């Protein structure tokens, strides 16, 4: 029963067995995705709503594809920007959706914590967080863990470097939880202005892993097993977080010379969408150790596993 998951809000709320259960079941779904018969009836009769208050191509499409493969009906709702400004409408929207007897709501919202409002309102429907503000993106973290696990035996003891705009990254926050829960040593690296001011994560659960932070990218990359780079939004330069792209590239770009020097065998990851030539060089992004395309493919797989878990299918060991 430990594997039952009511809501997928963030990985900090999941136990290690729950995380493992999702990852294990995803192996089965990967076979389905790669087969000729992609239609299943596991979620037949279920209704999944995707409620996106932010633009998204890959996350939304992967949830829709995942839901449809598993046989559920998927309803896509796009909310306009104006209704975001009036945040109170989210409570009413939640009540409306609840009244329509749907089984799961996949929400993306520009405000941190928005999925918790839905979860608080819902008596029966499940909530899946598809990205909230700068807080969390748990399905991205799960697919990242799954992708790494396709190439290593265990996450425990691995050195994971997460490089770039950590402070604004919900992907980084969820990945920190995920990798720490599975016992990795996580190193955050980037300009001081883009690093967190505090590292609270380990305070809230037991972990065999550790967490460090540095502005020196070589220190983070040294003997790393996995290097994850984060998207650098152009807006960060406009707002003064970094002086120029040139300086960022010179100091923090993941490129061949840095990788060759510090961790030639490391797996390379990026949650997308990439700015090739800025946070990551073209040759590394498309090189032999790059897992970036696999992350996209595994996005569908993990979302199948997550929808299956929250929509009530038992995954007892």
């Amino acid at each position, binding site marked *: 029963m430990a594997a039952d998951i009511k809501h997928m809000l963030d990985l900090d*709320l999941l136990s290690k067995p729950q995380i493992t259960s999702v990852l294990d079941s995803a192996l089965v779904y990967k076979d389905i995705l790669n087969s000729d018969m992609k239609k299943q009836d596991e979620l037949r009769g279920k209704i999944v709503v995707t409620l996106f208050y932010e633009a998204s191509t890959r996350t939304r499409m992967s949830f829709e594809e995942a839901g449809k493969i598993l046989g559920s009906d998927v309803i896509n709702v796009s909310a306009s920007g104006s209704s975001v400004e009036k945040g109170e409408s989210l409570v009413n929207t939640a009540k409306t959706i609840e009244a329509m007897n749907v089984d799961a709501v996949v929400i993306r919202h520009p405000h941190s914590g928005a999925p918790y409002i839905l979860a608080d309102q819902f008596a029966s429907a499940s909530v899946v967080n598809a990205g909230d503000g700068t807080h969390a993106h748990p399905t991205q973290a799960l697919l990242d863990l799954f992708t790494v696990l396709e190439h290593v035996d265990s996450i425990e003891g691995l050195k994971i470097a997460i490089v770039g705009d950590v402070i604004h990254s919900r992907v980084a926050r969820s990945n920190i939880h995920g990798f720490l829960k599975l016992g990795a040593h996580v190193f955050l690296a980037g300009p001081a202005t883009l690093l967190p001011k505090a590292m609270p994560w380990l305070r809230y659960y037991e972990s065999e892993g550790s967490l460090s932070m540095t502005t020196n990218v070589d220190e983070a990359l040294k003997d790393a097993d996995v290097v994850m780079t984060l998207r650098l939004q152009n807006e960060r330069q406009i707002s003064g977080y970094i002086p120029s792209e040139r300086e960022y590239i010179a100091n923090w770009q993941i490129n061949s010379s840095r990788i060759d020097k510090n961790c030639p065998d490391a797996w390379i990851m990026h949650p997308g969408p990439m700015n090739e030539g800025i946070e990551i060089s073209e040759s590394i992004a498309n090189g032999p150790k790059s897992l970036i395309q696999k992350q996209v493919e595994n996005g569908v797989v993990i979302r199948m596993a997550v929808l299956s878990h929250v929509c009530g299918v038992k995954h007892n060991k």
Partner: protein
Amino acid sequence: MKNAKILIKRGRVIDPLTGIDQIADVLIIDNKIQSVDTNIDLSAGPDVMEITAEGLVVCPGFVDLHAHLREPGFEYKETIATGTKAAVKGGFTSVCAMPNTDPAIDTPSMIEFVKMKGKSDASCRVYPIGAVTKGRKGKSIVDFLEMYSAGAVAFSDDGDPVYDSEIMRLALEYAGPLNVPIMNHCQDLTISPNGVMAEGEVSELLGLKGIPDSVEEVMVARDIALCKATGSKVHISHVSSAGSVELIRLAKSQGINITSEVCPHHLTLTDEAVLTDGGYFAASPGNAYDTNAKMYPPLRGESDVDALIHGVQTGVIDCIATDHAPHDVVSKHTTFDCASFGISVFETAVGSLLGLVRAQTLSLPKMIEALTIAPCRVLGDAFEEYGTLKEGTVADVILIDPDIDWVVDTKEFVSKGKNTPLEGRRLKGRVVLSLVDGQIMFDELEK
């Protein structure tokens, strides 16, 4: 009911101005304090009301330098009637009303409006604070002299800082001769704009934009410099960081004419309150994102709380003010980013603060001083008659039962603002009787 004589028997009478702290009787005749003595006997009569105060604290009514009564313009959040009803329930017999209403209190006639509503609707004394700048827009100073003549007791653009340093300087110079405080909401608007809670571990965990201490401290430092330069009275509203306490301590040690206040919540809560299950999202399975713990300035860390308490105990921070900021449900039942800043404070202030007294980090006489004579001193000579039980002064008197256990239940709030992070919390001690001008305006004594 109107009684010519009220005799309050055998309470622990604490009056910081006169230094009294002993079991004594308080006699009120014709709305004035007649005498405070160890044993006053009065023959019973139809015009005499005797109140037994054994086990209770008897002290001057509290004077709040900082409350949002929301009228005019936001009557759906609070009115002068409901706000002052909550005030007397919390022991506040004088309340200074902040001018961030709609329209703002920035003209003599608006000052008169608040006074008039105070006379007709209020359960306690209401004193209008005027805006520093027209429309609270920070661009040009108000008619200070006319507004003062109309009854403004202080000036503040609260809710926003007087951001332009030159406007602040000119306001201080121009209004200086009035010798009333210019209160500033210290917030450097350019540092970490759009922050919603204190920067720290909790903000990082929740992915919420942080408000660093420097946002406040930069402007506290500026205001100290402007205070020194002009010699006018500057009052720092709602101090929240240890660094600000230190800046104010240094300024005072140099003889600079600066005063300050701190709120009960900043003395008793930390930013962890945002994480605590409670509020609207109590059913949430995880992190609460409690919007009822969102206020400006934000709740900060334990070391800040310790420094603020020490600041009150040592007199570096002059007063405790509520920053009572009631909101309607819709303004709070939303995402943390969208939610309005501010919490409802009147009805929980004493219960919260008495926790510090029991923990022996704040003495009871000091707490009462910070709520009575200290704010009167900040306001100046016009308040000589208030905040004390001295013979001949007006009979604003409250009785506190320090031993009542109670649970905060916003359904019992008389304030329209149910927005408190303390919902469901167990507190000890509350006000049981409030006299304003010798009249019983709140009575919860055991019948």
